[in-house]
């Protein structure tokens, strides 16, 4: 166990948490608008493959991230049309989106198996990165880590302090009342779903371009589902999303480090630990009661009713 370096561990925790943080934050926006999109995993894996493919072909990871966000948003529009215009069940459609995304990604990804990622430069922040202990932990990451943290603040500000956020929350809490007040429920939800899709796409691309970094079929391995669980864990609050994502990132990194350090616990049991912890956390949260779920979450909105 001596080979585990706590500074490196915490630094890699931030890297491991970033994909889940991005996806969970996006899904929270979607759910705040009253929509339950279970397709996060499908949008993430699509973002992962599109980001990787564009990144490799253009040689620019930044361009990869932009394309991944666009791809995630585009895929989420399929969900939006089926659930918001054609009024289908959100649970079933979200599941369909995940199955579709997994198929689509392995189709696109075929030629990229075993290809090297273009690399993504770290941002060594001058002076700050030289601080002992804190420097390597906090100030030597790539721009996406910082962007994800900025996005937490942005989402918090938009939801809590602006008119746009107020309308979004109104649509999510009570879509009939929001409609009666003249807000365009379906339009607001389309925007929220696209935002969630883009952020899931970014999260996926972070896995394939930075975290791993290569394309492996099914590589998000349930991260999208964990993101969904974190939204519940966080009681639909942005800062708690950050806490939840870093908690799960920490467990993932710790178990990977234990595996590498040759722990006596078999690999399989270490690998299943993040999922078991997710279940445990969900149970603890539900004992306390699911506070904060938007009132219209998952319900079909039809103006005639």
């Amino acid at each position: 166990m001596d080979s585990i370096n706590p500074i490196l561990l915490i630094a890699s925790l931030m890297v491991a948490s970033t994909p889940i943080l991005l996806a969970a934050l996006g899904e929270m926006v979607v759910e705040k608008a009253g929509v339950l999109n279970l397709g996060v995993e499908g949008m993430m894996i699509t973002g992962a493959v599109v980001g990787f493919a564009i990144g490799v072909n253009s040689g620019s990871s930044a361009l990869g991230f932009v394309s991944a966000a666009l791809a995630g948003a585009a895929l989420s529009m399929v969900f939006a049309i089926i659930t918001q215009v054609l009024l289908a069940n959100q649970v079933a459609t979200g599941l369909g989106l995940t199955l579709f995304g997994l198929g689509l990604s392995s189709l696109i990804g075929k030629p990229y198996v075993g290809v090297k990622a273009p690399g993504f430069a770290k941002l060594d922040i001058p002076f700050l990165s030289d601080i002992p202990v804190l420097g390597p932990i906090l100030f030597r990451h790539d721009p996406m880590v910082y962007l994800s943290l900025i996005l937490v603040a942005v989402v918090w500000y938009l939801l809590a302090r602006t008119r746009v956020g107020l309308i979004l929350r109104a649509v999510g809490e009570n879509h009939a009342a929001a409609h009666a007040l003249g807000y365009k429920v379906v339009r607001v939800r389309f925007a929220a779903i696209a935002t969630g899709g883009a952020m899931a796409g970014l999260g996926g691309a972070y896995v394939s371009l930075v975290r791993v970094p290569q394309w492996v079929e099914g590589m998000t391995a349930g991260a999208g589902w964990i993101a969904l669980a974190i939204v519940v864990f966080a009681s639909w609050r942005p800062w708690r999303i950050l806490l939840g994502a870093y908690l799960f990132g920490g467990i993932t990194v710790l178990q990977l480090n234990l595996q590498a350090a040759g722990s006596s616990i078999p690999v399989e049991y270490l690998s299943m630990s993040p999922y078991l912890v997710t279940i445990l956390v969900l149970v603890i949260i539900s004992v306390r009661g699911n506070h904060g779920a938007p009132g219209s979450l998952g319900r079909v909105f039809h103006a005639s009713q």
Partner: protein
Amino acid sequence: MSLFRLEKRPAPSSLLSGLTPILAVLATMVAGGVMFAILGFQPLEAIRTIFWDPLFDPQFGPYSRPQLLVKAGPLILIAIGLALGFKAGIWNIGAEGQYIMGAVVGGGVGLAFYPSESPLIFPLMVFAGAFGGWVWASIPAVLKTTFGTNEILVSLMLVYVAENILASMASGILRNPDGQGFPGSRNLARDYPAASNPELIADTGMHWGVVAAFIAVILAYVLMTRHKMGFAIRLAGEAPRAARFAGVSPTRLILFCLGTAGALAGLAGLFEVTGPAGQITIDFNSGYGFTAIIVAFLGRLHPVGILFAGLLMALTYIGGELAQLMLGMPAAAIQLFQGMLLFFLLAMDVFANYRLRIGQPEVTS
């Protein structure tokens, strides 16, 4: 006001609700044809290879036709169980994990008695397989009834846990001692007659799992139309408030729906490892637990519908394999095709539940 608007029907149209699966299949063929064309295949040739050749081609038909039942058996068995829950608004999406656990527990019990020749071995394994799936599905059920924990996320998380247990078992205690250290159990179908699930009628693909699937269809039909539990399930899904007033216990319903689905998925897993797959390997599970979700919806959550949907989905699997072999089509293309089918089905459901009106709403009424 827009040109088109949707008007809710007082009750879903039963004619359209029966027609939508057929329309969805046709729409998927068209969209799939476009996708195949984009991938550089002749669309008509691809569709023919997937939907026609496995059944009627003189060269491939005799090999492919039995595969239809082999693949449809587990899909139907799992989908029947899932549909019970889906109808009641209980979302078990972890059938893949229950399928794996059925195979591991059932297969493990059989391997514990190797090389017994007792005729009781196979029935015991079947029981153990159903038990394994039941236990795995009861975890989200009990967590939901006791603490109100979301069953969607718990059942799905348990798939990943089950996959790791499978990996641990296949390369650990269930590993074939005579297998030169390769992961994977003894071959139950070939080397352990008392534990094998053979083809019952030559060249039909019919094995005990297929028999179980047919029995499940009949029992589910009786349950849904003649039994009080079936009534409770339908009521809970369509009018949850009314169900509470009618005295339907949510706890019993959740335990029953999830437990039954788990037991059926466990059975499917057991029949698979003792028959078509033959042994417990790290990746013997081929995603039936997830595809069965599509089968359940395609079959309109109705037992007889699921029977046909399972056969159709099995055809896309076999056709997909044939297209891989003959046209070099990637395996993922068929997965995408199955996903599209679910989308079209859900999208077309709107016409069963709503009327499409053109022009302004009438002021009267």
